[in-house]
């Protein structure tokens, strides 16, 4: 998908991050753009730099060098403004397990500066969207893995962010919950929300992403629409085969 500069909602420019004490950069010279209203997949093996990139874009980490902007706000210099525009669904279930889903959402709604009058309706809306309305008053600790993932998503979309970051949101859950999450993400995207998505499941990426960037060793090694990338690679029938072709079959746990 070709996007004009006016349509670019997220841009990284030679982004570089070296952790203290590390010899290799986690992210090296990373540059890519994301068009408004798309679902953008950030793919890569373990240790490729996906989570570091997401952390920089969501203001959790500062890059060693380079620049990233979200809706024209620099993620370092205008971090506070960026935080109003983004939503994050982290890989961890970042909820208070001893509180109910509704209590969690109520707390985060206030932290997100939602107007008091809107809080109750937004909570209902989010719970409805992730299919948890009926068990909203149960403690998170009593939820199944799939329910926790869905509650995690509910917090991320509570304030209807312009851009939603999801870091492997479907890890370790049942097929039904995964299907519901993917359906809902597509629905949110149709409603205008830009989604940045990291996953290890290539079929998921091929199913919902408009564009993907495959990163390895902190660098973008391929980017474009999933179908176009597959078609341009002789001998690859799908994104997973292309991914293995590009990143190799050796295990990456040591990185």
């Amino acid at each position, binding site marked *: 998908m070709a996007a004009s500069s006016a349509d670019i909602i997220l841009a990284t420019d030679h982004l570089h991050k070296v952790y203290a004490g590390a010899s290799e950069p986690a992210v090296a010279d990373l540059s890519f753009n994301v068009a408004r209203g798309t679902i953008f997949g950030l793919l890569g093996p373990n240790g490729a730099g996906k989570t570091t990139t997401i952390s920089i874009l969501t203001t959790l*980490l500062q890059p060693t060098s380079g620049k990233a902007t979200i809706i024209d706000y620099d993620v370092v210099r205008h971090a506070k403004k960026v935080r109003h525009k*983004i939503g994050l669904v982290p890989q961890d279930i970042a909820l*208070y397990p001893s*509180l109910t889903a509704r209590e969690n959402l109520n707390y985060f709604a*206030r*932290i997100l500066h939602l107007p008091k009058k809107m809080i109750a309706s937004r909570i209902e809306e989010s719970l409805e969207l992730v299919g948890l309305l009926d068990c909203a008053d149960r403690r998170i600790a009593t939820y199944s893995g799939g329910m926790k993932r869905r509650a995690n998503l509910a917090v991320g979309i509570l304030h209807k962010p312009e851009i939603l970051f999801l870091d492997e949101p479907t890890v370790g859950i049942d097929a039904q919950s995964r299907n519901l999450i993917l359906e809902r993400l597509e629905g949110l995207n149709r409603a205008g929300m830009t989604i940045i998505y990291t996953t290890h499941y290539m079929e998921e990426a091929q199913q919902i992403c408009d564009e993907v960037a495959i990163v390895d060793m902190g660098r973008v090694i391929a980017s474009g629409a999933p179908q176009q990338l597959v078609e341009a690679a002789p001998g690859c029938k799908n994104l997973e085969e292309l991914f293995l072709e590009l990143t190799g079959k050796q295990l990456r746990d040591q990185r």
Partner: protein
Amino acid sequence: MILLWANIKKELLLLSRDRVSLLVLFVMPMLLVMILSLIQDDLFRATGETTTTALFVNDDSGTAGALLQQELETNGALELVTEIAGESLNRERAKQAVFDGDFQFVIVVPETFSAELDAGAEASVQAGLRNEEITTKSSPVTIVFDPAVRGAYRSAVINALRLGVVGLELNRKSEVFDRLLPLELQRSMTAKFGSMPPGSEMEMPTVSFDWTSQGLIELQEELAAPEKYTTLPTSVQQNVPAWTLFGMFFIVIPLAGTLIRERQEGTLTRLMTMPVSSSSILLGKVIAHLAICMIQFVLMLAAGRFILPLFGTPVLELGSAPIALIVVASSAALAACGYGILVGTIAKSYDQASIFGAVSIVIAAALGGVMVPVYVMPRFMQELSIISPLGWGLEAFLDIFVRDGNVTSVLPQVLPLLGFFLICIAIAMVVFYRWRRGS
């Protein structure tokens, strides 16, 4: 303000659901055992052998006062101080030193001590030899003590003094007895036989030994500023504030635990991507836990005032400065909360926080005089005790409860407590800020 309230409400909700944090107890490691052993070693010596220091004012115009001093120093029960900064002591100067908290005891020997001791011994022995009623009266040796001194140590000093006095009395009575016995025998025989013929039977006088248990010198306990205290400080007044402080500081463990759990569960990461300041997150925690501490404080005082008396203890007297009491309690609670935030930001795991938090509190309590009074610790431990926030809090509470303290008089303890809170929060904010910058 809405954000702060949201954070406070969330913290209170979490606390109400987290029963485990209220049950955190750990075995004290070696360091704690060593410190307590050191302290208790001197505690036993203070109540048994020696080293309790007391001021000694000898107003006696005769020699008995000096002999008493010698007796006390010889039997090793007390270490007597007779001058301060090179100046000899008088009664008023010594009492002021005790009231200021520089010393815990003053023993004052009255001017007529020798004369009355001699007269008393004479009268007592003579009455015994003549089987008459004993009537003696003397000016008391006065022991002036710090209101904050616990009963056990007061008793130890009184007993040591009583021992010295009894020794002196027996000595004098023996001298008199030796002198009077032949005279009384002679008097008795002459009265019966006139001039006695050789070989006639000798009738011995009937001797009463009641005088051996008859004390000649009265000991009198007196407060350093009697016009200010209508009652003596009780064990309840000394123990309740000490253990209340100890309990309040244990808020460190659940407070540090919430920070560590938020880091481990990822909620802190999520919060850091949201438009909320670090200070709002931390302040929310401080205020919620401060409220818990204050409730704890009120309940402990209520127990001292209403529940403990049901089991026969004295009623807890709260002094006459309720504002000062609230100021001290709030300052101590803030210090505890600040320390909890600091431990929570520095510790890498809940285990680290709970072990370090619990042990450091127990050590601070021991150093601060919660378990045994600071003045019975070895000298170097006494010097270390000034670093304990629990010691500052305890000193301030005792000042209010037994020295009629007020807001002004507790400022020397309140200001360090607030300073400690601010330093802890400042360090925690720096660490927090570094997290947020991804350093």
